[in-house]
């Protein structure tokens, strides 16, 4: 998308959307899953998406919560790939596979999860 001069003015409006009750709940949920502060996640969302997408986040999360197995839900993959669209489906599958591989190789679930979180953040920020 081309950027317009007035677009920087939209940042405050996007933040206002994300601060509302239902939006704040889903942002907190994903921030906790990723192990980052909600302010950091808000910044990522404001940079990546238009106002309408942000407005629709709670409904998208409702739809995404109905999909995915337990491992995917633990890593927040349905939210990241379907609701927030911060990762592609292939990237989500890859992270899940690597997480399962690590556990098979004897790494503790907690360590495997934190490594998966790191990978997710690298992908989101790249």
């Amino acid at each position: 998308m081309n950027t317009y001069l007035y677009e920087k003015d939209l940042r405050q409006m996007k933040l206002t959307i994300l601060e509302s009750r239902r939006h704040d709940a889903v942002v907190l949920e994903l921030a906790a899953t990723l192990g980052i502060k909600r302010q950091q996640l808000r910044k990522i969302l404001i940079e990546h998406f238009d106002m309408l997408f942000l407005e629709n986040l709670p409904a998208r999360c409702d739809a995404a919560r109905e999909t995915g197995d337990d491992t995917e839900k633990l890593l927040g993959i349905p939210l990241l790939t379907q609701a927030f669209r911060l990762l592609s489906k292939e990237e989500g599958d890859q992270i899940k596979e690597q997480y399962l591989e690590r556990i098979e190789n004897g790494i503790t679930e907690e360590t495997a999860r934190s490594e998966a979180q790191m990978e997710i953040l690298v992908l989101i920020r790249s």
Partner: protein
Amino acid sequence: MKKTVDVSLPVGPMHPCFKEPCRIKCETRGEYVLSAEVELGYVKKGIERIMRGRPWQEVMFLAERVCGICSVIHNFVFIEAVENISGIVPTERAAFLRVIVNELDRMQSHLLANYSYCYTIEHETLAMYLLNLRETVMDQLELITGARVTCAYIIPGGVRSDLSAEDAERLRSALDHIDAELSRFIRIFETGPLIALRSKGVGILTKEAAIEAHAVGPTARASGIDNDQRSTHPTYKALGFSPIIRQEADNYARIMVRFEEVFQSTGLIRSALAALKEGPIRGGGTIKAGSIKYRNEAPRGELLYELTTDDYGRILEIAIQTPSIPNIQVCAHEMLIDAQSAADITSIFISSDPCIACTER
């Protein structure tokens, strides 16, 4: 070979085809639409903030002011939400009267949406016919509730006013007139070759994309999704309601779902009139403290009210998720992408029945 230049094409915020202001920013290659973004903020009301801390008697009136087109359903959902918190059950007669008024509201909303679409594709004759027919529906709303738009008809435990036998007869003959006229207009829509050119195969929304974005209402049902909150509502269940679903997933399907739902609404009103028994229209009750997530089907789709009340009947917290939010989002990010002509941008957008007042609430 001639160089193709990518063009950023802004549509709106003021546009002859839009009823309300919003800006669609499209990236195009020639006529082909590559991507689209929607910007809001032109008519933000902040109504949730205004509602917070106020007693339900005030919030009830504010709720129906969220949207000027589908005000009855906001009144309906808010009152049923506080009724559910407080364990209030409406009287049987009031429950059917609510359905009658709600379906009249749905009819006028669908007719207005289809009018807008016909106007957008430059079929002004059919558009004006539909707008004229909508007036018949608005007259019925006024007949029952005493108002055309902000009716404030539904109150905890019942409804505000009764329907006399003469008024019921007037309503029945109006429904016959609507059915006859609408059949004629649908034939015009179905057989118009130019309408088909502008509508069939345009603005495709796949079932998967609709599910992912939580698309609702006729927009989702035109893509083969069986999602209608009326299916779970006790009064609608008693009337034998089943949703209308189509599979084409294009502009044509979305308009036809609305047309078919107008017929369905006339049928539901006739059934409700037949089921109306003599009895009180107000049951009374006191609003208590509690929290709820309550949803019902607005003309545009699922409407969700999430609210918390206290012992004095004040609304401590409230969040409203209107159906236009997911529908406009899926329209901008799925339906508009790959549109073959820039002229289709407005028709695709209008086919999703966008309501900016609802979206910006």
